[in-house]
């Protein structure tokens, strides 16, 4: 039991940090431009596939740098030639544009790489057990993922809070026209922020690709959870996104590891009842409901605290 708790906590924090790599970019983009980027998870997928392809060509370490840069460039192009032109039609049009993009990117990826999972391996240099907890080997690659995510988190924090660039970005979040009047090119700030956010998502894809599955439906699977994270944390709140990422990461990891059901807790139902919705609910294990837990959380928070955990604004 203790073993399960330790391993699940490690894995949960890891998944949470990965979620935060994605949700941080999404949150900053949202609070700055008012656009919820539906294609954010698609950038994560692009990162994984670019990482896979570049690893095949030039090795993992160059790919770790190049793939996020490529994804960032794609993101900047999307902002410059797509979103900026759509801005005049309002936020709904922008949201729909990113929705269409997410759809198209998934189709393009499955057209080029096919629908089956890629053989994206952990680099040999990191393919060894880092330490052993109660007879379970914990892979070094996961530690590497954790280190990279935490490093990015710290770097992001320092850049946003301690540098001049961060100051401009923060100011542009709330007072874009004032920042423009002070002589900064707000359009370019938006483009760069969008690019950096996409690059972070791409980086998450590169490092998560070998450990999770690299497949053309990975964006569709992760995307909705990402939106749960940022709505749960409070739209536009970076600390909220951080807490929500860790929370959902931990909940999902623990739920997957638990095998209990109502039947195992209270004994099986009377067989004379026959199959019904009740027996379904009675026999379902916690591991089986793990995929729906984030959405249950979403509904709960909307009932009890509609603005999200740390959200302050109504829209």
């Amino acid at each position: 039991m203790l073993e399960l708790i330790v391993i699940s906590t490690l894995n949960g924090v890891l998944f949470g940090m990965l979620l935060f790599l994605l949700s941080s970019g999404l949150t900053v983009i949202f609070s700055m431009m008012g656009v919820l980027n539906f294609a954010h998870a698609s950038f994560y997928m692009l990162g994984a596939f670019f990482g896979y392809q570049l690893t095949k060509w030039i090795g993992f370490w160059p790919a770790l740098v190049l793939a996020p840069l490529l994804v960032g460039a794609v993101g900047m192009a999307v902002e410059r030639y797509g979103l900026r032109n759509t801005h005049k039609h309002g936020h709904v049009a922008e949201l729909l544009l990113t929705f269409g993009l997410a759809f198209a990117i998934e189709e393009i990826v499955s057209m080029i790489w096919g629908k089956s999972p890629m053989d994206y391996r952990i680099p040999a240099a990191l393919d060894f057990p880092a330490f052993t907890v109660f007879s379970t080997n914990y892979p070094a690659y996961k530690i590497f993922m954790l280190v990279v995510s935490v490093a990015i988190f710290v770097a992001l924090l320092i850049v946003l809070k301690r540098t001049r660039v961060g100051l401009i970005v923060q100011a542009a979040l709330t007072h874009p026209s004032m920042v423009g009047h002070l002589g900064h090119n707000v359009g370019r700030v938006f483009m760069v922020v969008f690019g950096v956010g996409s690059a972070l998502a791409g980086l998450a894809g590169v490092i998560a690709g070998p450990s999770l599955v690299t497949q053309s439906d990975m964006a569709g699977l992760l995307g909705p959870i990402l939106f749960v994270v940022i709505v749960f944390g409070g739209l536009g709140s970076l600390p909220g996104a951080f807490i929500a990422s860790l929370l959902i990461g931990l909940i999902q990891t623990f739920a997957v590891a638990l095998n209990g059901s109502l039947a195992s807790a209270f004994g099986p139902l009377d067989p004379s009842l026959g199959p019904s919705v009740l027996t379904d609910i009675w026999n379902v294990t916690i591991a089986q409901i793990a995929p729906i837990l984030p959405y249950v959380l979403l509904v709960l928070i909307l009932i009890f605290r509609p603005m999200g955990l740390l959200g302050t604004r109504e829209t």
Partner: protein
Amino acid sequence: MSDAATTTSDMPKEQSGSSARFYSIWLIAAIALIVLPLIFSSGGSLTSFSLIGIAIIFALSYNILLGQTGLLSFGHAVHYGLGGFIAVHAMNAVANYNWPLPLPFIPLIGGIGGVAFAILVGWVMTKRAGTVFAMISLGIGELVASSSLILRSMFGGEAGITTDRTALPHMFGWTFGPQLQVYYLIAFWVMISAIAMYALTRTPLGRICNAVRDNPERVEFIGYDPHVVRYLAYGFAGFFAGIAGGLAAINFEIANSAYLGATQSGLVLFAAFIGGAAYFFGPILGAILVTYLQLGLTNLTTVWQLYFGIIFIGIVMFAPGGIAGLLMMHRPLIRAGSLGMVIPSYLMAAIPTLALALGVILSIETVARYTASEGEGNIINLLGIPFNATAPVTWIVAALLVVGGFLVARLTWRRVAEAWDRAATVARDRGYLA
């Protein structure tokens, strides 16, 4: 968007003298629905017409949210799917217990299923509009879609639940076995639902929905609660989506979890938006186009969904009013008689735009065939000209069409804009354009 909406709402006023013309549109639609299968009587076209009919109801119900009330939902298929499941269970129950309920009433039960779920979740969902509503609808959609795989006795797991539509009590001697009879059943419900939904836009509730879409704050000042209005609109949308789901269950004699999924929600959004959410008839056009493309493209290409995505992105970026918006843009020009001024520029722009489109199609197909390892043919048949996906000639032609088409199209579209400005000025001078 709001401009366009006001023009629609002004329409009956302009036509109040000629309300006969207004009713004749509905009459023509009804006659067309009756006559269509007599002209195109093959099995394939009957199936297409049935699917299009279902898609029309579904897209119109979606537009109660998107176009009428300004709620962007990413989970509308939940009501469609639940309506379908309720209908299938109802059909099985009717057949098992010999209840005297004929098949034509089953869609109504589907509608009740759709509205029941809308009442259940709608209150929480419609608390806020905009992005938050969009995210919640997505979350609820995922929640229901994932739950449907867990609650096997209700949703039948991956396989779904089957039924037999001929086992129900017959009506007027119709067994509803042949597709033709099912088509007429669907056509009947299309007419009823379309009239009901159109009538809804004419009621005070429909009008206050438009007001909530455009300015919820002012609606509050005149004493209405936007939350309640959105909730009511959500209920109506769920009801008609459930009817569409019930019809789909009758048509396919099965309901499975794909009915509820994100793909279905995405398709209805595509249909409503491509058709044009600002006009009542927009989603009808969109549903016809999307269903037709879906049926036609799947035979031609493996990557048909990519074309959907590209068409959708193109519409969002260049024609946010959808097809209906594009058509209605020309109304004042036709009335002012200045349409002739833009036609030549359209014809000129059409050639490079077509070349660009062909280039894009050729490149997509080349990539698709090149990467598909399974023994698929490498020959792309475009306009009767065979292209070999592995030949460099094909790549060069595709690149030339895309780049050349894009550069020339950009120039010609500038000409279109100029011609449009001139024509619009004429229309404005003659008082047909504000």
